[in-house]
Each structure stands twice: as C-alpha cells, then as structure tokens.
C-alpha cells in the first residue's frame, strides 16, 4: 500500500462485511437485516469455487456460522446419531458411530473433494448447498434436519431430509433457516459390531468402497436381518473431483435373502438428489436374485432424473446411476458371502 494514500482517497472498492454471530438467533437476525445481500458461510469451500467461477457474486455481507458454539460435535444417542452441522467432512468420514449407523454418509464424506477441503468443509454446508454428495446418503438413512428458521413457528423444528429436498425442488426452501444438525436414526438394530479395520479409520487407510458396517436385527419370528448399505460416487477422475453421479442404498436382508426397509437414492453434480421410489417398491420384500439386477439397473436409470452439461449427458448419468446401484448391491452381497 502506498503510504501517501489515505483510506478516504480510496475509490469505492466493495469489501464484504463479515459478521460473527455468537448464536443461531443472532445469525437469523443478521440475515433478516441484510436479506439477499447476505450469505451464510461455514467452511466457505463451495462458495469460494462459486465466486472464482463467476457462478455467484461475492456478497456484501457474510454471516459466519463457525463462530456459533455447540454445532461441531457428533453425538451417539440411544436411538440416533446427531451430527452438528459444523462438523467437518473429515470428522464425519472418521467417526465410528457414523461408520456403523450411517455408513452411506460416512463413505460419502470420505469421497467429497480432497483432504485439504474436507478439513474445512462442513456437513451442514454440503447439505444446505442442496447439491452436496452427502444428500443421497441422508435420504437412504431417513435422516432428519434440525433447523432454526425465522420463517417457521416454532423457531426450532425437525424436518425429514426427503421433505426438505422436495421443498428445494419446488423452490420453496426457507432462505432464513440455519441448519443446526442432522439426525440419523439407528433403525431396528439390537446388536452390532464394527469390523476390526474400522476402529482406526484414519485418512491414510485405503478406502474400501465396499466396507459395510455390520448391523443385525432379529425380528419377532427370530429371523436375523443384516444391514446392507453402500454409497458410490462416479467422478471425472478417481479423487478430488466433482461427482457426475452419486448413488446410495440401504436395506436389510434376511438369511433367506429377503430384502426389506429398502431405501434407494441418487444424485450428483449440480443435480438434486432424489429417492428412487419405484426401485424401492421393486425391491421391498423381494428375494435377492442376481438375475433381476439388470432390471433394477434399468428401472433406476429410468426413474432417476438428471441433466446434461458439457461433461456428461443426462442419459449417461442415468445409465451409470442404474448400473452403480445394481452393481453396488451385487458387490455388497458378494462381500457378505466372502465374509467381509
């Protein structure tokens, strides 16, 4: 800076004002005050790529969310695991409770961007972006979102992730809501254990896409059901890549091969993640048989609505999503049979 120039001489270069609310209520008040001129910022990783790419303008006001206390922890409760929205992707991709009870999310978080980004990026930001790779995982885990919302009475409320996605789809999401946390119900598990290798889930561990947490559930007839859960991401390269397609699936399989509580979801890129209800219907109560996997792939491809951009056409995204879902199920069964 030239010492002869005082601030008064400076031309009007816009610098954003950065606000540091102490709590969520204050964050809401700031947003109410500055409206469309203000954006929430948590890790800031997605916003920076949008600014640099000219997709979004640098706003006049930034409201930091990372100054708010108590939104970083992941808490393992009896019936659910609650993830604070400021938990980083790195935290989520290393957490034993998520590995066991929300495995699709755990795997998703390990494959978003690169380690340096995952150190900063938050799960809340990924979800609130509405196009994050974590969203299919939320859908298959029946996750719910904990909001504080200036447009909602009462201020605090819990909403199923799938309902929120629908609001986003029809353009009705609240612009005055702060995501406080995400709740992952544990489901009907009565017993479970973690595979040995997952107790030390560090960044350097080779990523095994088929690593499933093993959770069991014994029903009233004494039938044992085992959880199958997987997440797949297809990008334009092996790592540090935006997704072309992400898919997730979760279900329970009996010893005789019957599937139940099936959840199937797909998303990826800048498309909105969606539950694939026809696939779920097709699989619910069905006995596993590899011969119907091509049909599953077809149904999923048909049901998944995607989009085209310079890097992939919609039909390709749809077909690969279908293939990845059917293949993911095949691989999960193989892994189960091979004792993984």
């Amino acid at each position, binding site marked *: 800076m030239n010492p002869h120039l005082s601030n008064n001489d400076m031309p009007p270069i816009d610098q954003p004002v950065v606000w540091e609310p102490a709590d969520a209520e204050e964050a809401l008040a700031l947003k109410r005050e500055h409206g469309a001129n203000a954006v929430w910022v948590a890790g800031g990783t997605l916003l920076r790529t949008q600014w640099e790419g000219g997709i979004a303008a640098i706003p006049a006001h930034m409201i930091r969310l990372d100054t708010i206390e108590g939104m970083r922890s992941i808490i393992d409760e009896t019936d659910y695991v609650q993830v604070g929205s400021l938990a980083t992707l790195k935290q989520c991709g290393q957490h034993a409770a998520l590995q066991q009870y929300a495995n699709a999310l755990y795997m998703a978080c390990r494959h978003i961007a690169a380690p340096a980004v995952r150190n900063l990026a938050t799960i809340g930001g990924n979800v609130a972006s509405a196009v994050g790779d974590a969203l299919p995982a939320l859908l298959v885990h029946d996750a719910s979102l904990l909001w504080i919302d200036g447009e909602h009475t009462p201020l605090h409320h819990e909403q199923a992730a799938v309902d929120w996605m629908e609001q986003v789809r029809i353009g009705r999401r609240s612009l005055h809501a702060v995501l406080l946390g995400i709740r992952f119900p544990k489901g009907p598990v009565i017993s479970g254990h973690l595979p040995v290798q997952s107790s030390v889930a560090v960044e350097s561990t080779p990523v095994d896409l088929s690593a499933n947490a093993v959770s069991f559930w014994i029903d009233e007839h004494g039938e044992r059901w085992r959880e199958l859960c997987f997440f797949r991401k297809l990008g334009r390269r092996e790592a540090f890549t935006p997704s072309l397609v992400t898919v997730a699936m979760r279900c329970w399989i009996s010893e005789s091969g019957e599937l139940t509580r099936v959840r199937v979801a797909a998303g990826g890129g800048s498309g909105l993640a969606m539950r694939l209800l026809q696939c779920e219907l097709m699989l619910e109560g069905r006995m596993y048989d590899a011969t119907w996997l091509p049909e599953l792939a077809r149904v999923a491809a048909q049901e998944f609505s995607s989009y085209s951009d310079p890097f992939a056409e919609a039909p390709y995204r749809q077909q690969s999503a279908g*293939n990845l879902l059917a293949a993911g199920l095949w691989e999960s069964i193989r892994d189960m049979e091979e004792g993984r």
Partner: protein
Amino acid sequence: MLLNRENSGERWRKRRDGKEKVTGELRYLTDMTAEGMLYARVLRSIHPHARIVSLDASAAEACTGVVAVITHLDVPGLNRFGIATPDQPALCEDRVRYIGDAIAAVAAETPELAEYALSLIRVEYEVLETITDPLRALEEDAPQLHPEGNVLHRTSVKQGHADEAFAECAHIVRETYRTPRQMHAYMETEGGLFVPEEDGRLTVYAPTQHGYKDRMQIARILGWEEERIRVVSSPIGGSFGGKDELNVQPYGSLLALKTGRPVKLHNSRKESVRAGLKRHPMTIEMETGIDTNGRLLAHRVRIVADTGAYATLGAPVLNFATEHAMGPYRIAHVDIEGISVYTNNGVSGEFRGFGGNQAIFAMEGQMDRLAETIGMDPWEFRMLNRRQPHDPGPLQQEIWRTNGLYQVMEALEHSTIWQRRQSRLDAGMAAGTFIVDTDIDREGHGQSQPPWIKRGIGAALAMHGAGLGYGIEDPAGGRLSLNEAGQIEVAFSYEEFGQGLIATMEIMLIDLFHCDPSDISIIIGDTDRVPHSGSSTASRSTTMAWMALQRLKVPFLEAILQEAERLSGIPAQELTTGIGGIRRKLDMENVTEQSSVYAKAGNNATDELVISYSELAQQSVLEQLVFDTHFQYPTTPDEVMGGHFLYTYAAVAAEVEVNTLTGNVRLLDTYHTVAAGPVINPMGFIGQIEGGSVMALGFTLTEDSVMDDGHYMTKNMDTYIIPTIQDMHRSLEVEVIEDLPENDPFGPRGIGEIGSVALAPAITAAIRQASGVWVNHLPVARERLIQPLGVGQQEGVSPR
C-alpha cells in the same frame, strides 16, 4: 536396462534444487517483490470476435491509486508478438480475435485497485461471427481473421503414387481421429516482475523457455535495442512449451517504463486458462492400405489443426505433425496434406510433443486396426512394416542412423507386460475377449473381480525428432570458465523449468572434472550472464549442453592445468582436476583407465591437492580462463523444411481396466522403453518419462479445454481435469537403450517429450482389447464404453 535406483548406483543423485522446491522455500520469479512496486492487471476481451468501436480509459486513469493505464497507443515499437510470425497484438487496436485478447492494462498501488480500474475502462464492441470450427473458417464467406486469410499454414508430403496404390491394396482402413485442446497446467501461472533500472535499462524477471527470444520480442515492442533489456527467466514452475511464447511481458514492460516503477503482474489461474496457449486440437483423417501380406502400400492423411486466433508456433507444430504422420514405417506411396487454420478458439501453440502426440495417436491407431483386420499380432505387424536401418527419414531426408527403432521394439516384445498379454492370448483369450482377473489389494487380500471389470494390454511405437528441424535457426553453444569464487562455471541460455537441467549439468560436470558439486557453478536463465545458446525446447538442451562441454573441456583443462603448472611448478601432465582443486595424479595408470567416473573421483580425493580452485582463481588472470563455443544443433543436410536429423525412439505398453458399468478407464501397469543414448541423470530421466506419461494420460482420458462459441467452459482446475496421484499408473517401468553407433558425436539425446507421445495409442489399443471398442476421439468418452448391466458379459452377474 531397467532404469531405477538399484541399477543407477552413484549416479542416482538428488537434484540440487529438489529440497527447496518440495519444501516451498524456493522463490520463483513470480514470488519476487520490489520496493515501491505497482500491481498490474490486463483488460481482456469479453467477446471471442468483435470490432472495438470505442475505447475510453479516462475514468481508470483518473482513479486515485491508479498510476498508469496503457492501450495500443502506448506501444512505441511493433504492437505485435509471436515467436515465428508476429501477428498477435500486444494491445488490440480495433479488433479482438479471442477471449484472451488484451485491450488495456493498468498499474496501480494495490491489486484490488488495479482490478477495480479495469472495471472503469469502457470498451464498446461490435460483435462479429465467432469462428469455432476450422472447417467453417475455410468457407468462402467466412469472416477473415487476418489479412492473409484464415489459413496459417499448409503442408504436403507426396511420395510415390498413392491414388494408384490404393487400388492395389488388399485391405484399407479409414478412420478419423480427434484430439483435445490440452492445457499445459503448469503449477506456476504466467507472471513476472518488471524493474526499470537507474541506468536506463529494464530488467524483466519472468519465466520463459528462451530468455534471448523474449528479449528480442520485448525490444521489438518497446522499440529498444535488445541490449538495454535484461531477461532473468529461471527458475520456472513448469512450462511444457506454454511459456515459450510471450505472455505478460509486454504489459509489465510497458507499464514499468511508463510509471518508472517496478511492476508486478501475475496471472490468476482463471486468467491463465483464458489467455494461455493450448495444444492444437487436430482432426486427422487417415486412409491406410496394405497388400495381401500385410505390407503397407499406401497412406493418405489429412490433418486439420485448430490454431486459434494467432500464429505463434502453429506452423512448425503442423510441420512436425505432418512429419510424424507416417510413423517409423516404410510406406511407398504417401499423400499427406495438413492445414493449420485460424479460428476464434483461444490460441494454440507449443506443447510438449509439438504435434507428434496427435499424429502418433492416429498413425498407431491405424497400425492396430490394420493388424486386426488381417488377424496379425499388432507388434508383428509393426515389425513387418518398420523402417530399415539405412532408410532415410520420413521426409526422405538424411537422418543420423541408430538401431534405436529395432532395439525398442525388441525390448517391448520381451517386457513383462507384453509377455503377460501374450500368455493370455496363448491361453485362448482372443483379442476383444473380456478378461476377468483377481485383484489383490494392498494388504494382499484377494477379491474376485466383478464381471464388468475388463482388462486389456496395448502397445505403441514412436520415432520422435529432436531439435527445431531444417530451415529454422537452431543455435547452440555455451561458456566454461573458472569464476572469481574459485568454481568451475558453466553458462548456458537454457532454462530450468522443472525438467532437471541443473541436476543433469551437474552430473555432466562431475563426469568431466571429477570434482565436488560445491566446486561447480551453473549459470542459466539470465541474458546478462549467459551466452546465446538457443532455447530449451524440442528435447534439445541435454544434447546441446553435452556437445558444448565436449568442445570446451579440452581447451579449458589445458588452460587451467597450465596455470596450475605455472603456479606450482609441477608439470601439467601430472595434474588433473579433482575435488576441491587441481591434484597431482598419484597413479598415472588410473587416469587413463576408463573406469567409472565416480571411482576416479574417489581416487582424486586421495590424490595430493596441489592448488585449490579458489587459490587458482585468485592468482590467475581469469579472463584467460573463459572459453566459449558456438555451433548449430545438428540438422539434416537435405533441404527439407522442418525435417529432423536426430531421432529418439520409444515403445510403450499399457494395461488398462475398463469398467463397463460406468465406462471408466484406469491405467494399471505402464512400460516405456526409450532409445536416447547414454543416460546422464537416471532420476531425472525417469522423472521426464514418468511426467510425460502422466501428461499423456490426461491427454488420453480426462483433459480437454471445452469451448462453446469461443468461450472456455473449463475455466479453472475444478472442471479442467488433470490426473491426480490416484489416477496415475499402478506401476511404471522405464527401460533404457543406451547404445549408440561407434563414434556417435551427439551424445545423450533429449527425452523431454518422448514420454508423452505414445501412451495414448497404447491405452486405446488396450481399451480395444478389454472392451472391443475402438476409440478414435480423445479424451476417451465414457459414453462409448458404458454398457447396460449384464449385456455382453458371458459370466452374467451372479456372484457364484
């Protein structure tokens, strides 16, 4: 010999610039600052093709904190640049031809002010038709981008009578190949610091591959004598051809002179993508015919290169592609025509491989398709058709003969990877058969491969010319001296852009003088301190440095030993150079013996030190210990424009995995064998081949600067996808052929490009074997390889 740490012994040396680079301590030229410096920014066109109706910079000039604004009116000399043909405006006068064209530049007290000032410059455009397709550019009613029209350059090679010969062919393969607009993606974007000196000179600290050429071009723009400019150009954070042409230098220089203050200018990545050079996208149609025995008879090629808005080195790139479009094969009847066409798609220019990558991809694709047509092994087919040792070059020009072609072909045939392919075929897996394998993960756990994972192995061959070629000034030389600090100093105008030139020179000097690295000083990249020895391009620096040192070592040694004799009284013939200074030979026999250099250096350490280099420097007239040499890079004697004389040979094999669920391709094991003469610096050699190979992997699978109506769709590294370490080969073997004919005077050949030219066709051949699909457009589209689950998979999808 497989090149690796074990086989390299003491030559496996850490490069002297390595630690500084990996720790980030090294200060690149774009890291430099100067007291009182200004920050510059460039206003670039927002339209790919438009007339400039009006330009008003007054508001920017009036802005507080803005020290200078320049437009074309501020260019005192020639308002054009371009290494070969200066046709690119430094600052556009009345027309813009691509989205990176510069219209004005600003120097201000802060980067933010400079950026703000750009927003105050008013440019009124009249938008013109964007020429996005070279074929549209060739139509009669297309807008003309340059006074001489839309054709930059044409090439033509006619040998024999192709038309008649095609009628005789038993089989003909016709195919159209397309290659991507690859970006150099160097880590350090273009930039520099421009300092007006008190003595009226200008110092330019800006990375380039040829400091003297930049000096000439900047002088031409400023209307100055070249000598008034000093260009400091190394170290460089990567170039790959992309920084050979001028980039920000005109703006930095003009602004520094206008303001009288140092000016810093450093492109953001976004601006680098927008303004920077790319590899020429080419469409190559090939029609190749063979007789009933599989011998090549006729070959017709049509190359269309999209050279973008300006010439830079578009013409030589097309020459090179044309020369390499018939590969290392004997073909009696050849009909090749090439055309390089101006469009509004960015600017294409020099890029590692220089047009060879595109042509070799197409030619090797033809060889594989022809071999398959007649059911012949692809390598056997190549052997049947390869050039004979005494054959002339592809342009019928005289070339320096080596056995490199035969040697690399034989090496590949015996490589583990090719043997593996052979044993699969022997086991009854015909080409196109899906191969299911057991994947062993890093912990050694076996996991049965799902049926949608297909593997294949392919190979390709390359003969790659080095040097600029016939008809282009290609100077070489160097200087060897004893400097004031008592070091053996070598000076070249070559540049260090990461390729390992400094490390290689250090080893060459230790080889020659048996001294310690601390006894050596290497001066490069500074026009005030180095002689004009040409550019670091076209795989030429290593050969040139070696040849220069061969010329300089005898007079230099004679002189310093004579000087040592004068000072010590010991006869010169009893003296030798060694660690720390001139030493007396203890064992005369050892000196003449051609034992390992390092063994000799070891002996030197125990030889009696007669006089240290620093004492010698203090007591001598140093001007008498300076030796220069000047010569030309070896060129073919035949008058064939662009024809090369020295060739390097390489063969590459690659194993890939195709996932038919997604069409994703992964490179597994890779093998490069290279015949390039003696290896000076093994670690550097592997680095060059591996780096070139990974760059070629990007060219093959993911990299393309996608454009829409003259605008980049891939504006940054988040959408322009280069390979990461996760995408690289699973393993890489480099086998070197070091033999050269007896008394070969040219020494080690450069290997800066050869690693990057033949991987693409090896990968596409492997994809063919794995999936049954011929790929002719790069990067490989997943859409071509994806299959519905369960189709074409004999195994079905049952896990058991």
